[in-house]
């Protein structure tokens, strides 16, 4: 890190204004998580495709990305070569933490990838289908413990939506937050909780080996290669996608914004990026421009409603 710091100082002092921007991508999370991986995959793809010669990744972990977001909005203002990775988790975190800096204070560029939520139970569980789960929830919502990621995150939101769609009071759900999908997975495998909810990727190998039973996925339509109904098919009108996006700092001119958007579009269509998506099992959910901004506003509003329903946001 020290070397990177010094190297970037040197590079910064001698670099001439080049035609390709040297991007700095902030991953508002610790190394290893989804955003960090997205940032580093972006780094590799931008460099290999020659869209940008020199790309740096900076990690600013904490509080569902809101610490990084606040730093990004204030320190990178007006800089057209800075990017931040973010996603749906940030939307929830901003609301639950009452973060002073929201997504309104950055320039969203494009949605890049997404993962759908999977609802699983241990293979030994006597819950065999979504209908069984709904029955159990209706009988006693507190007796069904949900294991998933951080409080107010996608997993929590999805659990709240499922309860609501099933006609169960969402404030009564017994959601147990774990620090990330991995720890939750252990609790599910050990039958410490009744049901598990997280991105499908977290459970994939367990589902394939038969130690977990996949009840449903939260996509709009069935996903190729995954043998499970959608929540919609199971009678619950819930579609949740844990999307990830990239945003630029506030205060960009229209030309600057267009240039960044063009670079990101080139990236999203590139071979390197498409291949990376395949090896990582991420869905391509590229969406940019006004369509993305509209979708983002919709997601923020919907999330706020759910979090109020669950009782996390007053």
């Amino acid at each position, binding site marked *: 890190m020290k070397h990177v*710091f010094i190297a970037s100082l040197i590079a910064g002092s001698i670099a001439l204004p080049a035609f390709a921007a040297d991007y700095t991508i902030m991953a508002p999370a610790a*190394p*290893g998580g989804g955003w960090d*991986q997205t940032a580093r995959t972006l780094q590799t793809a931008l460099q290999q495709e020659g869209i940008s010669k020199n790309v740096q990744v900076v990690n600013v972990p904490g509080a569902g990305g809101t610490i990084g977001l606040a730093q990004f909005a204030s320190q990178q203002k007006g800089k057209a070569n800075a990017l931040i990775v973010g996603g749906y988790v940030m939307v929830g975190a901003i609301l639950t933490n009452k973060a002073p800096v929201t997504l309104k204070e950055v320039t969203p560029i494009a949605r890049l990838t997404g993962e759908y939520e999977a609802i699983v139970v241990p293979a030994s569980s006597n819950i065999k289908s979504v209908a069984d789960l709904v029955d159990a929830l209706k009988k006693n919502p507190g007796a069904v*413990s949900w294991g998933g990621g951080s409080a107010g995150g996608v997993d929590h939101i999805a659990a709240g939506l499922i309860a609501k769609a099933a006609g169960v009071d969402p404030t009564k759900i017994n959601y147990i937050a774990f620090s990330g999908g991995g720890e939750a*997975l252990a609790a599910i495998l*050990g039958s410490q909780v009744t049901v598990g909810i997280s991105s499908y990727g977290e459970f994939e190998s367990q589902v394939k080996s038969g130690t977990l039973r996949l009840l449903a996925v939260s996509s709009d339509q069935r996903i190729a290669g995954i043998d499970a109904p959608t929540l919609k098919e199971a009678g619950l009108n819930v579609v949740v996608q844990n999307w990830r996006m990239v945003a630029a700092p506030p205060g960009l001119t229209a030309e600057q914004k267009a240039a960044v958007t063009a670079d990101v579009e080139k990236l999203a269509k590139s071979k390197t990026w498409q291949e990376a998506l395949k090896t990582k099992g991420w869905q391509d959910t590229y969406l940019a421009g006004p369509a993305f901004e509209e979708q983002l506003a919709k997601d923020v509003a919907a999330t706020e409603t759910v979090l109020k329903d669950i009782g996390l946001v007053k």
Partner: protein
Amino acid sequence: MSTFDFLLQGLLVAAQPMNLLYALIGVTLGTAVGVLPGIGPALTVALLLPVTYRLDPAGSLIMFAGIYYGGMYGGSTTSILLNTPGESSSIVTALEGNKMARNGRGGPALATAAIGSFVAGLIATIGLAFIAPAIVKLALVFGPREYFALMVLAFVTVSSAFGDSTLRGLTSLFIGLALALIGIDQLTGQTRLAFEVPDLLDGIEVTTLAVAMFAIGETLFIAAQGNTGPDKVEAVKGSLWMTAADWARSWKPWLRGTIIGFPIGAMPAGGAEIGTFLSYATEKRLTKHPEEFGNGAIEGVAGPEAANNASAAGTLVPLLTLGLPTTATAAIMLAGFQQYGLQPGPLLFATNPQLVWGLIASLLIANFMLLVLNLPLIGLWVRLLTIPKPWLYAGILLFATLGTIGANPSVFELGMLLAFGVMGYMMRVFGYPIAPVVVGLILGPLAEQQLRRALAISQGDFTVLVTSPIAAVLLAIAALALIVPLILRARGRGEVLGQLAASED
């Protein structure tokens, strides 16, 4: 093919010259980042991921494994010599290790850490190869209530092991517990004691607190003494290497540290630090030289160092068998696997045996390489202590600051480093032990979260805490650890405790 054949084949893969080179690069890099406080193996592996994209899977995973083991080891060097823990898992090492270094026994301290790490790494890696499926079953039995019981045990044994005065030790511990409350509550997402300061939302970084309390506090303490302080430390007194007595006192702690560290590393919510705390507490209880604890007891270095390396291997158990990363480094190694289209999990041993066994074999080689790399360097490292005091401590300050800034480039973080440094200084002046503060910061949130999770799952029924056999046994041990010394003390301690220690050997 049997397990043994696979391992031999793996050793052949790992022993190819190019792979040996990758292992060497890995352990060297790992040791270097382990030495820098705040910068851990996780960040290093993350930085290298894009670089290794072009390498073959075996080569890059071998390098990552080297970095991981190297990082676990490197932290001990600065802990021992400079009282600056490079990683949170080497905090305990600083307690006895630095005292040893100041008594001119830095050489044996570094040697017992290196050899202990090697022994533990070796046994734990072999354990990973042969008993991973059994260990992972044990780890999965651990739910919130079992973890809570384990935390209670850790609190009881650890807090009685630090310092001479229980009251002072507990005071320090509670300072740590109070600091641990700062930040977002993980179970509800609500902020506590952050006073709308964004930097406090994520709580207080353990390494920042540890570096501040140990390194900065110590520097201030030395500076405040001016020229009246004790004379220059003698870098080498007696043998530079471990004597026969050192060996005799080290081998049992190495083994016990391994036995404690390995399963705790394999637990999804464990963390290497807990193993080192428990190992330190165990050694303090079993030692035949209790008077040396706090003044540089070699057991207090040997045990925790073995425990932290064993837990590094333990971390790979859930990663390889379940695809479950339990540390940041493991999470990035998982990303590394995925880069090559491999999905760690229950099927990995069946679908890619060459790779898994290649990795295990390369861990063995990395472990051996670390020993070869570090033993000859000990003579050089202890020279550090001959640097005149003002220069040495100025260097430590620079080092601590750079490490903190490297991990988190923020002015607020530096301010915290300084503030906690002053707190560490005050606590030294007034004779309060500092280690329990760090222990409280690490164990507090774990204990709280697990207790609340257990109670949420049971919907508020407290009896769940004792109805699981494992939790009940752990709590019973904790109760014994609390009561037995009291009884023994009441009946005229000394002899009885000594006999107990002797009979447990």
